[in-house]
């Protein structure tokens, strides 16, 4: 073995690679993989009818899994041995990208907004594309909302979808029972969601980070179970349908309107096309998302925003400096909830139908993943992550089955590889000294 490891030494700067240890390590990993795969991959249960189960064996798959783990582990180890000194290339590219996007933030934002505004009129645009972009923007908005709570204030909220649901149901119920339109209900949705946030936040915000996470998760489930079971009001599992669409300053988007109402295409003298409504809805969410972004960016510059960031970094120090942590956290929680409520209101009007099924824990996890993958506190990162997570499954429908599997694995991998997210932005918005004087 010494001969083999001797040959591996290319030059004196590379440490001696102990191939025997590497191989042993990879073999152990493969053995563990075999043990893991044997019961669940190797044996498949299936219904044989009559409430009985049969089994099929797939030992070939176990062998493939073991081989893959062996090769993967070996490659990873070798890579680690040779890259120990320097940062890996992708990580270097990402850090440079982060720095670049921070420097060019203004230009990038203008370019992004211009592209988003022009999207419906570009030659390759289609109804499908606009629909997809609308979905992306909903997640961008939710991500920005949650970013206030998780990214800025450092509170892990696993029940964010509850506020989204509250906003959606507020609009659906007020439209059904009070006859409110989308634009009348929008502020109401935000207000109701914010009050839910404050009501929940008041007792629980004294808790430690991970306790808070579980309590918010429980709260999200409570809201969902209540929506599911309170049938007389919420319609139970059937949800609420026929939610009104938004109008353009009172002009509805319809082929024909009832007597005395002018429709959008009549007023402007256009030919009627269902795409007009889709495009309009797209612009509504684009506006909402941009307002959200502007709002949070301004908040960051306010004392309250600075208190959030300070609290995220060190709660004890904050308390010593006279910041009341409960109030500061409560404001972050309430504002995050309000933004979620706005997004929920929009979601209801866009779908025209809502049911508790749209507001499960997995939705909360998706929004959290967007914030985390993008880099907590980074507005640009959220956009990047939302585009990635929403469009990825669209590319290969064959992948659809594996979507959540990859999703979960990616969450783990990114935490292990870059715990601060892809475009990490943890620099405080306020610095005492100019940046150039710090460090090197």
């Amino acid at each position: 073995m010494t001969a083999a490891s001797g040959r591996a030494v290319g030059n004196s700067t590379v440490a001696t690679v102990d191939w025997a240890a590497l191989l042993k390590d990879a073999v152990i990993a493969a053995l563990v993989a075999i043990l893991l795969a044997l019961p669940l991959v190797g044996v498949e249960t299936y219904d044989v009818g009559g409430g009985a189960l049969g089994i099929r064996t797939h030992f070939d798959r176990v062998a493939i899994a073991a081989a893959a783990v062996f090769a993967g582990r070996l490659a990873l180890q070798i890579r680690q041995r040779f890259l120990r000194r320097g940062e890996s290339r992708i990580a270097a590219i990402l850090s440079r990208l982060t720095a670049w996007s921070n420097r060019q933030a203004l230009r990038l934002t203008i370019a992004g907004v211009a592209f988003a505004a022009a999207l419906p009129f570009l030659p390759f645009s289609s109804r499908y594309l606009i629909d997809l972009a609308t979905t992306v923007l909903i997640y961008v908005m939710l991500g920005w909302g949650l970013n206030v709570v998780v990214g800025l204030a450092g509170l892990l909220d696993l029940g964010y979808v509850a506020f989204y649901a509250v906003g959606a149901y507020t609009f659906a119920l007020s439209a059904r029972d009070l006859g409110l339109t989308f634009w009348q209900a929008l502020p109401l949705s935000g207000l109701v969601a914010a009050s839910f946030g404050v009501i929940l936040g008041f007792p629980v915000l004294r808790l430690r980070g991970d306790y808070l996470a579980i309590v918010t998760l429980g709260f999200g489930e409570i809201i969902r179970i209540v929506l599911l079971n309170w049938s007389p009001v919420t319609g139970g599992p059937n949800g609420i349908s026929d939610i009104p669409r938004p109008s353009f300053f009172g002009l509805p988007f319809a082929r024909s309107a009832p007597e005395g109402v002018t429709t959008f295409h009549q007023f402007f003298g256009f030919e009627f096309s269902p795409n007009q409504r889709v495009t309009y809805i797209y612009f509504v969410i684009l506006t909402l998302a941009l307002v959200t972004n502007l709002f949070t960016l301004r908040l960051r510059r306010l004392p309250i925003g600075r208190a959030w960031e300070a609290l995220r970094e060190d709660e004890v120090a904050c308390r010593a400096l006279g910041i009341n942590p409960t109030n500061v956290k409560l404001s972050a929680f309430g504002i995050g909830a309000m933004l979620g409520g706005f997004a929920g209101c929009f979601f209801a009007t866009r779908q025209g139908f809502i049911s508790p099924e749209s507001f499960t824990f997995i939705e909360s996890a998706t929004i959290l993943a967007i914030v985390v993958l993008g880099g907590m506190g980074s507005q640009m990162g959220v956009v990047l992550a939302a585009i990635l997570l929403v469009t990825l499954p669209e590319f290969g429908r064959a992948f659809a089955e594996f979507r959540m599997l990859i999703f979960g694995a990616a969450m783990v991998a990114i935490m292990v590889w870059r715990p601060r997210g892809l475009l990490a932005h943890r620099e405080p918005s306020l610095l005492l000294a100019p940046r150039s004087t710090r460090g090197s």
Partner: protein
Amino acid sequence: MAYFLQQLINGLTLGSIYGLIAIGYTMVYGIIGMINFAHGEIYMIGAFISIIALLVLGLIGVSYVPLALALVLLTAMLFTAIYGWTVERVAYRPLRGSFRLAPLISAIGTSIFLQNYVQILQGARGKPMPPLVQGGFTIFESGGFAVRLSYLQLLIMLVTLALMAGFSTLIATTPLGRAQRACEQDMQMASLLGIDVDRVISMTFVMGAALAAVAGLMVTLYYGVVDFFIGFLAGVKAFTAAVLGGIGSLPGAMLGGILIGLIEAFWSGYFSVDYKDVSVFVVLILVLVFRPTGLLGRPELEKV
């Protein structure tokens, strides 16, 4: 009275299962101070491995029920423990010492991964299990209502009791248990005194997973059906149990599990089945707000 007694028996059975899962949460939290969010999924995997082991044994021709159950128990504990070990190794160990939310997010990712892993491999539909342990006896009858204690319920409670006794002895008397208690008090000091902290943490995950596998087998026998989604709710409930009993405390986890089981049984027996899960979440919130240290827990000191 009879109805009350019946709910008590049901609640104790359910509580035993929650208690077994809660021990995994409480031990991990006691030592490394993180919520192992994927623990519910480990329990679900334990349930699936039990079903598969039973089917395989049936094919081989082991038909003597006590022998089959014992074999299934051991197989499930072994394989599930390997899952627990791997999860710690892959998803948590690299993050030790990272910023405080990182392990939790990694755990959520693991949980989503494992759920979908099982769903893809074994299908999304519930897996039925024919009842293996049948029969029981009537404790007493009043007004036409018979209070029944099935052999299965008795078995679940006895196995839980035996495991609890075994694990308490293990923690109290063996070198491994001593090392675990040392790590719980002060991990850095323990490592300075020659304790292999990594190994102790690995063993903690292995033990927690093995107990969750027992809970998985019990729930499979009790309800007769499992699917890939059972881990989520059971996990949250067991975590609630661990918090209620005082996180970090072994008897607390058991006590909390039994209390949660009782609350759930009485709530669905006397109020409404639809909202039984709400009752558990409300208990969780109330406990955390009014007594964050739980019933048997020690207050946590925040050191700066």
